[in-house]
């Protein structure tokens, strides 16, 4: 697939530095109160950004065929199915069909 290397040493090191910066960022941001739940969102977004960098550039997904993307996406999507179904049950645990909470 990748007949001649797409990535040069320089670009690897660049990605490495960006990843380090993002690690520092996520650690720093964690100590600042961003209000209602935004901390979790920030931590997750940065983690996803780092993950994408590693997948695309270090794992050469960017230069491989579409079916590799399908496999990677399937793994993530199925995890979301598991997460979604389980958390949906937890969140709506004492919700009546009409949307009010159980009160006997």
């Amino acid at each position, binding site marked *: *697939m*990748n*007949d001649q*290397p797409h*990535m040069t*040493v320089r670009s*690897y*090191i660049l*990605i*490495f530095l960006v*990843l*380090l910066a993002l*690690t*520092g960022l*996520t*650690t720093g941001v*964690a*100590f*600042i*109160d*961003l209000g209602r739940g935004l*901390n979790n969102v920030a*931590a*997750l977004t*940065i*983690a996803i950004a*780092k*993950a994408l960098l*590693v*997948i695309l*550039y*270090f*794992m050469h997904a960017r230069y*491989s*065929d579409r*079916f*590799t993307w399908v*496999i*990677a996406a*399937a*793994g*993530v999507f*199925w*995890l979301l199915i*598991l*997460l979604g179904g*389980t*958390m949906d049950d*937890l*969140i709506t645990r004492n919700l009546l069909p009409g949307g009010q909470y159980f009160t006997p």
Partner: protein
Amino acid sequence: MNSAAAPAASDALAARAHQFEDAEQQHHASWLGMWVFLATEVMFFGGMFTCYAFYRAGYPGAFAAASNQLDVLLGAINTAVLIGSSLTMALAVYSAETGSRRATVNFLLLTILLGAIFLGIKSYEYHEKFVEHFVPGAAFRFEGPFARPAEIFFSFYFAMTGMHALHMVIGIGLLAVIAIKARRGRFSPAYYTPVELTGLYWHFVDLVWIFLFPLLYLVGRHL
């Protein structure tokens, strides 16, 4: 499909399995096989991440209190070490791709070293938890209001980082085997699939840690 010359050259080098038409097909098959395997690993760790998310939503206060007991600095350093090992791994694959044998071996050894450092820091953290009675089970002590849910946090802390560390140990074993083979010149620009697949595996283990670090260490630090 690359030129006809390449497969002939690689035929000689690679122990091309008889069931494949040519080396290109075998390489791509191994590449797909590895990615499918990594999808199973995503679901394997995914089970634990689901449990973690479930209990964190159930006990937000307890998970924040328990997470604050972890040492963020060590966590951050470990993340940096692991990202560094990802870099050296990628450079190892790059050197194998460009045919510089010595660079491949050196980067592989560097990756093993960084992995070992990570495990060293991790075992020091585990020792710390042992000393502070945070190991779940009979000896678990946790002052403050959240003793019960905190034990669940630490159960998953050990389960997830333990499983991750186990995958690191397997990774280091793989790297050692590949490094020996590389030193014996078994790889060439036309056939370096084992190095590439080990790289994929190693980057996946780094990926898991990229999510573990914020989920375990950075919970409720801002409170």
